[in-house]
């Protein structure tokens, strides 16, 4: 089944407000694709454009190589799982799941077969006769998934469907969703502001901010090689050292961070010598310095949090405006660091990313 989704020059304006700036995107057949971004970044608008609830201001949507421009929402090969699930409370569980088939004129017997099979798939066998109000949050979630799958969509659209669940259930449902996606081979487009969800489940993630695509990459690439300052700060935890580019040496950049010293890092996006920039280094990349380290930073410890497997240290360098967060193996420092103790930290150039300072995206209309 060809269930590729192709967005061509899609943009969306509401009056003067631009919710989505023109963008192109290809989502592969059977891919688990997430849009990740803070609220108001335009991700839900994009979902509504794909589902046909919104007409884009410019551009076109293609699903499985077929243009969707003239196809109304109720005829598109997509099905949506709503944030509040939007199950039909006056219908039974089975009637909910069968609704899409009822619309398509499938016979009662056939419908019942499908709903029984889907209830099996989502681990709720034999609960077709229950009322929606009798179900728990997690069970409702499963019914919503079954209802969306019943119409055999090419693309399943998920609008933050896990946000109403408690933490434990949420983590469980992540695994389950991924499993269902693997079994059904349907393209999943998942909307979330929760990076944990996006990173654990997705094949690829599009990070959005202020109506623009910041970066489209696999979760690990997003984490290791952010291409914009927004992505570096939004995905995972990061320490940012402000500075200026001294020189560019192939893929590496030397950055001058004033009194804190000079550091080497990977060039995350195009940089010129003299350009203001941010040097990003993850808390877990900061280790006790060794002789070989080119990048060294001397800090004093302000807070120590013991979290079992690792310690998180909040440290400060006298000449830097913000605290430096360090996540260290408890075996390396356990019992050896206290508030006020001095540390010499080292970090690898290839675990450090240098990105342009300038961040007009966050001030864009929101």
């Amino acid at each position, binding site marked *: 089944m060809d269930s590729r989704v192709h967005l061509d020059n899609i943009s969306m304006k509401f009056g003067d407000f631009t919710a989505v700036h023109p963008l192109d995107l290809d989502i592969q057949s059977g891919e688990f694709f997430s849009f990740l971004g803070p609220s108001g970044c335009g991700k839900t608008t994009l979902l509504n454009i794909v*589902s046909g*609830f919104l007409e884009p201001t410019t551009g076109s949507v293609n699903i499985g190589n077929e243009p969707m421009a003239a196809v109304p*929402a*109720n*005829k598109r090969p*997509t*099905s*949506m799982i*709503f*944030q*509040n699930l*939007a*199950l*039909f409370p*006056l219908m039974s569980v089975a009637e909910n799941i069968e*609704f*899409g088939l009822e*619309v*398509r004129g499938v016979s009662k017997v056939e419908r019942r077969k499908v709903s029984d099979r889907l209830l099996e798939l989502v681990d709720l066998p034999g609960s077709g006769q229950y009322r929606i109000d009798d179900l728990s949050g997690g069970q409702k979630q499963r019914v919503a998934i079954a*209802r*969306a799958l019943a*119409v055999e969509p090419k693309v399943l659209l998920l609008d933050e469907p896990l946000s109403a669940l408690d933490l434990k259930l949420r983590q469980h449902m992540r695994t389950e969703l991924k499993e269902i996606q693997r079994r059904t081979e349907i393209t999943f487009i998942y909307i979330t502001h929760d990076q944990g969800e996006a990173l654990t489940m997705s094949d690829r993630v599009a990070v959005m901010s202020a109506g623009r695509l910041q970066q489209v990459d696999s979760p690990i690439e997003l984490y290791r090689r952010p291409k914009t300052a927004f992505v570096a700060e939004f995905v995972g935890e990061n320490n940012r050292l402000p500075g200026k580019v001294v020189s560019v040496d192939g893929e590496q950049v030397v950055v001058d961070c004033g009194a804190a010293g000079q550091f080497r890092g990977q060039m995350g996006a195009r940089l010129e010598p003299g350009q203001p920039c941010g040097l990003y280094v993850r808390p877990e990349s900061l280790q006790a310095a060794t002789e070989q380290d080119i990048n060294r930073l001397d800090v004093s410890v302000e807070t120590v949090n013991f979290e079992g497997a690792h310690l998180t240290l909040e440290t400060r360098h006298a000449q830097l405006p913000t605290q430096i967060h360090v996540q260290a193996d408890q075996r390396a420092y356990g019992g050896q660091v206290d508030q006020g103790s001095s540390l010499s930290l080292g970090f690898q150039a290839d675990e450090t990313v240098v990105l342009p300072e300038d961040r007009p995206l966050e001030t864009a209309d929101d």
Partner: protein
Amino acid sequence: MIKQLTARFGRPMTLVVLLLLWFWLIVLVLLPQLIMIDYSFKPNLIPSQLGGPEDVYTLGNYQTLIGNDIHRTIFFKTIWSSILVTVLTLLVSYPVAYFLAQLATAKQVMLIALLLVIPYWINEILRTFSWYLILSFQGPLNALLLGLGLIDRPVRFLTGDGGVLIGMVYAYILFMVFPLYNAIESLDNNQVRAARNLGAGLLRIHWRIVIPHAKPGIATGCIMVFMLAAGSYAVPALLGSPGSRWFTQIIYNWFFEGGDWNMGAAYAFVLLILCIGFIAAVMKVFRIGLGDIGK
């Protein structure tokens, strides 16, 4: 509840409030009804015969209604026409209520609600009379239709039941729109979107999602409009033709033209029973309880 009232207003005030409440309920509501029922089972006598040998309970008044072909026909016609009015009002009000509740902006809701309410600032007789003018043989509606070339000679709208139906639908539309609006407004728009997303067209969305959700509102509106229509006097009196007399007009005639209160009471009691029967039937059909209607 009495405890709460006492705690809040003190014993004397609570007593006054309760007494007034019971006075209203017993003296002003229940007692007159009981007296009318009592009347309806007695023959119409001149004062000197009261307490005499003829002053006994009888079913005579009810037998008159059953035995009188014309009255019986008008009775059933009133029921039938009231049902028709109810259905027509529902058909007219549903799109308005749906638009107000789900599609309109706050500003549009304000404007339309105002437009709906303003006519009700005018007395019912005057409102009805304005329809008399609009629908009359040489009235503006005929002039408009003639002017547009849709008809080649004026239509007599006011013969038959047409005028009464139009007048009543107009008079009671608010009593249908607001309960419907209340009910539809509480429907989560995502339900509609979900149904659409699963492939449902407009009709099916309404039939399977919106109408079942709005059921209590539909029932409330239908009950109110039916009661008002069945009990209406002004509209049939003004807009009705001799062939479209309403049962209320016969009750009126017994009381004020015939001077026979006993007969009038019997006729009125039958109408009351009918209305209660209608409510019970509607509640059964819509499978709702009294509590749902109160919402």
